[in-house]
């Protein structure tokens, strides 16, 4: 064992690179973003370093008039609320579709379970952009849905489907639905089917069994699934960009705009911090919920 490296050196050598990459290229930039969000903004939209300013945060609610007075401006609040609302809607739809699917999967034979899990997982690994693009083909004025409806003679004018909130909700659900199914499935899969059968045996109706046995067992999975759908929906960029168009912006797009056409870094940074804060609140809620339900599901 001659020349043995010390514990600390081995640790630095093995864990160091990962810590360095994430530290330098993720953590420091996030800290920089927080700093920039409280900096002044110059006329070209860049940062005036060292000039502390709350302007970026004020801008979320107020607008500066020509005479430098503040006037309430609900445009950005609307976008933020819309993001939360659409994410919430997405989560609810995903839960309604995802729960029965997960229950179906959990009650199959092991062989079918494996196949179904693979089929649910597969779309996640395919290109998000491409999958959202596919919905354009379906939702366009001359797309598959309008085409089918008019061919059937149900409509004469194409329904305006694309570039609506509905389109965004459909796209978000489509993007993140597997995240709802898998955790619920994971918690139901461990369930002993005999539990359900013994409930039936004890004169429980289907609805009672669902409420008293199955849903309580699935709670950790449901909570995890809701978070896993809600958080990425809130920060979505691609879906509203492709399916929403200019009138249905979400926070992600608003942030993106500040680094493109609108060019206002402090404001973009402040929105980034806001998004992070919303995510952290959701995760804290999740941690608390899990702690509360952890006890009685074991």
């Amino acid at each position: 064992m001659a020349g043995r490296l010390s514990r600390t050196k081995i640790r630095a050598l093995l864990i160091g690179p990962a810590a360095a990459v994430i530290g330098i290229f993720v953590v420091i930039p996030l800290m920089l973003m927080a700093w920039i969000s409280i900096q002044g903004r110059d006329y070209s939209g860049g940062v005036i370093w060292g000039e502390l300013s709350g302007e970026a945060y004020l801008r979320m609610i107020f607008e500066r008039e020509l005479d430098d007075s503040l006037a309430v401006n609900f445009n950005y609040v609307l976008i933020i609320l819309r993001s939360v609302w659409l994410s919430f809607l997405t989560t609810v739809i995903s839960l309604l579709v995802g729960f029965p699917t997960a229950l179906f999967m959990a009650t199959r034979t092991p062989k079918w379970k494996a196949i179904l899990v693979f089929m649910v997982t597969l779309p996640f690994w395919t290109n998000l952009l491409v999958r959202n693009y596919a919905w354009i083909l379906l939702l366009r004025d001359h797309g598959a849905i309008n085409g089918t409806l008019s061919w059937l003679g149900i409509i004469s004018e194409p329904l305006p489907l694309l570039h609506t909130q509905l389109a965004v909700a459909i796209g978000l659900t489509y993007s993140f639905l597997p995240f709802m199914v898998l955790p619920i499935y994971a918690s139901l899969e461990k369930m002993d089917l005999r539990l359900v059968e013994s409930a039936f045996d004890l004169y429980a109706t289907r609805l009672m069994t669902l409420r008293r046995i199955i849903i309580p067992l699935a709670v950790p999975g449901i909570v995890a699934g809701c978070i896993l759908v809600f958080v990425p929906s809130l920060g979505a960029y691609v879906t509203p960009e492709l399916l929403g168009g200019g009138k249905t912006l979400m926070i992600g797009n608003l942030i993106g705009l500040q680094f493109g056409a609108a060019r206002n870094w402090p404001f973009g940074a402040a929105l980034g911090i806001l998004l992070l804060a919303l995510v952290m609140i959701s995760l804290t809620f999740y941690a608390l919920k899990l702690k509360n339900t952890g006890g009685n599901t074991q």
Partner: protein
Amino acid sequence: MSNGTKHVGNARHWPGMLLATAFFFAYVYLPIVILIALSFNENRTVTVWTSFSFDWYKMAFQNRDIINAAGNSLLIATVASTTATVIATLAAVRMSVDNFRGKTVFSGLIALPITVPEIVPAVATLMFFASLGVTLGLGTVIIAHIAFCIPFAYLPIRARLEGMDPRLVEAATDLYASPVKAFFKVTLPLLLPGILSGMVLAFIISLDDFVTTFFLGGAGSTTLPIYIFGLVKTGVTPEVNAISSLMLLLSISLVSLSLFLGRDQSRK
């Protein structure tokens, strides 16, 4: 399976369950199927089916921009996934045996890139590079991809290490293998499928990435998703269907490969 017979005592049958599942899979797969079908449509109007053709694929393969974008995508994904996998493997191996203060903080840190919505680290890194005066391009894209590929490689490797019987390494040292030999003779071979599986997943994630590449890319770093986005924004052409279909098929075959590699042979 008995269908149609209403049997209340059977836990496998719930009203509406099959319907919801059917809806789920239709919802998830139908758009993909339609996209792929339309990519073989001869007609320029994209949505009306006329006849089968490979024309759009031929056109795509002759398009120099697409070839360049594909080259960039492959380059970025290869460099980012292999680098990230090496870094993640080192960390995972050490994390499984080490105990130190701040271990939980590190675990959280390593998962950070996949915990927060991608747009946030993307624009943060953009400001970081811009403040340092770094020119955006392939280099900045690759660095950012390495960062978010690390958790995708790290998590499956770590999971496999957790599932490994610690007595296997003990057995190796009991049979006269030094710790270094035990690592190379026992730990690494058993870990290898997990490592390869993690690497393929990181490769797919990098290949498919849009947001990070979009904000951190510059001239000469156009990847396939960026190119597709540009085409979609300016107007749908059948060519997009062809490249999109190819990307879907590539992802599907890679993920199948990853699952095949990562399946646990030591369990029955």
